């Protein structure tokens, strides 16, 4: 893989993302451009399924860098996020030293706590990449961890270094490109955000969403894609517990393609709504009457665009 050079302007960033199937709005492209230029972590917050994680993947792909992903969960600790010692190997080493009868405390300690016995977890991998090219480090769903891990991240994000008590500080030669995502199931501490460029990822507008559907579900009929997008945009306007994200729109479009549909009709909507909405209350809110009305509106809107083009 060859490393591509970083985009030189917002337009270049926009084009780069689009080239790799990510249709960003200009605001997001600006944030991405600045994150690369200023070498700051990019903090993306937004509802589930609006394409936060995807940005990191696309960045890795488009810049020709590897993607190191750290999925966060409650209780995530340094042993699984940063590094761990290889205890079985260390034990064998000690036994060997004992068997050979040459046990010197100091040498033994310095022998078994060396890089040879270190198991690298995502963050250390990102700071010391095997191929020497700074990767994209994706810290996914940071809101799922707890405060102690956030506090630990501060050193990593500010200095791009980690401290291993037995070895000392390990510092990245070239800082990785860091993307942090959060679904906002709790507020991330300001100290973390302060070190990052903050961006709230919104639902896309109809035009952008259509472009995404066309690119990602090429098998879908043009007219159907327009109807799906028009329908989804209207559903987002309703008072729901969880509005559908882009991921759901794509799922739904794929489901409709799998069912060989080329137009939306109320019955198909009722049968496939589970691809779009994930809460029973929300599905219940789309009654047959509502579905019929929304489908009619979606038809009309798609037809209007057809006529215009």
């Amino acid at each position, binding site marked *: 893989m060859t490393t591509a050079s970083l985009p030189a302007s917002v337009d270049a960033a926009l084009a780069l993302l689009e080239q790799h199937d990510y249709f960003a709005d200009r605001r997001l492209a600006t944030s991405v451009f600045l994150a690369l230029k200023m070498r700051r972590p990019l903090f993306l917050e937004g509802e589930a399924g609006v394409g936060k994680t995807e940005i990191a993947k696309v960045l890795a792909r488009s810049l020709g860098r590897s993607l190191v992903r750290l999925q966060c969960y409650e*209780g995530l600790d340094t042993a699984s996020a940063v590094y761990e*010692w290889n*205890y079985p190997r260390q034990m064998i080493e000690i036994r060997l030293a004992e068997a050979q009868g040459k046990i010197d405390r100091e040498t033994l300690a310095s022998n078994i706590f060396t890089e040879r016995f270190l198991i690298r977890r995502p963050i250390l991998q990102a700071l010391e990449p095997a191929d020497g090219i700074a990767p994209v480090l994706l810290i996914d769903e940071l809101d799922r961890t707890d405060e102690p891990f956030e506090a630990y991240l501060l050193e990593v994000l500010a200095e791009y270094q980690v401290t291993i008590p037995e070895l000392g500080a390990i510092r990245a030669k070239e800082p990785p490109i860091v993307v942090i995502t959060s679904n*906002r*199931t709790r507020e991330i501490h300001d100290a973390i955000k302060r070190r990052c460029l903050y961006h709230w990822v919104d639902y896309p507008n109809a035009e952008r969403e259509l472009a995404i559907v066309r690119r990602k579900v090429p098998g879908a009929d043009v007219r159907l894609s327009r109807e799906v997008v028009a329908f989804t945009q209207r559903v987002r306007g309703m008072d729901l*517990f969880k509005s559908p994200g882009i991921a759901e729109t794509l799922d739904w479009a794929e489901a409709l393609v799998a069912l060989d549909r080329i137009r939306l009709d109320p019955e198909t909507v009722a049968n496939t709504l589970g691809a779009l909405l994930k809460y029973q209350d929300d599905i219940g809110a789309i009654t047959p009457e509502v579905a019929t009305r929304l489908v009619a509106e979606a038809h009309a809107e798609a037809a209007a665009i057809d006529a215009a083009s």
Partner: protein
Amino acid sequence: MSTSPTRLFARERLADNVLHFCRVLRAAGLPVGPAKVIAALEAVEAVGVERRDDFRAALESVLIERHEQRTLFDQAFELFWRNPRLLERMMQLLLPKVYGRTPRSETEAPLPARLAEALSPVRRGDRELYDQETTIDAAFTFSPREVLQSKDFETMSAAELAEVKRMIAQLRLPLPELPIRRNVPADRGTAIDLRATLRAMTSARGAVVPLEWRRRRHRSPPLVVLCDISGSMDRYARMLLFFLHAITNDRDRVHTLLFGTRLTNITRHLRRRDVDIALARVSAAVSDWAGGTRIGACLAQFNRRWSRRLLGQGAVVLLISDGLDSDVGQGLSREMERLAKSCRRLIWLNPLLRYDKFEARPAGIRAMLPFVDDFLPVHNLDSLKQLAGAFARPRMPRGRAEAEFAAGLGA
């Protein structure tokens, strides 16, 4: 680097403007420190000023930290970077303040209150006058039932106040601690701490070493308090606020929301260490003191806007309300069910329970009772103290609280 003097001048002025813009945001309450100002300059330098939207997005990504701050940022940006009399305003900002504001022309849109204050701050002396003003803005009231008034904590007699404060400050709410997925070294642990054991082995010179142990750490879960401040709860709300202040400052991960006809998150205000300052801020932030109650609507709002942000990691919800709902329980049971399903434990504190003859007759109470895990009184200091015992009790299957309550009535 251009050497042309005009260009240099333009760039210097831009830096000045960015600096002033940061100062306006800071005065409006956004956390914009010097580091951010530097970052903002760097970002502007990188993006350039050719396109207004890029310029804006660049400043935005550096200067805001939360989604909520966007509104204020947008308003400030529009105002600051579009207004042709920008310089004039900046001068105002820098010049010593003259009493009163510069009169604005009719065509100009009114400034948002926080920004207006930031652009021409009121002097300390003026602010006191300001605070004493009792003008009530009724433009956004929900209904005549919602009494828009600032609750006056001063009316409590001094002796009473001191006594209650002293006693409540000592109250603690011992939530049961739950195991979390982190470990601590322990003499009698449940898992072997390999790292510590190995370190011991290296210094043991081949002798047999005892294993080092660790065990799961315990921590109390987040607590979310939803407190009713409607007219019927008025007598208790005041006392409870002291209590809420005490528990908010006693532990981390406590969130407090008040509701009457609307929902207000007061967590940030209660974090003030000084109870008087905290309560004064709460009083200023809440507009529906002693009005009606729309429990269903407020819970719906909580479920939509806050539940996913506050109820993670096994939160316990403390619902303080008498259950007397102005909307006679409309849509209430559905929202209660959603609330109960999103938290670890739902505890209802009801001051009306102090009456021996209390019956779950009002529609609101009937709608809520099936979904709570515990149903307890909260009308005096004693009952607050008894909460501790209730928390220690293990959680029972849902619906048991209602059955127990019904059985208690029959006895």
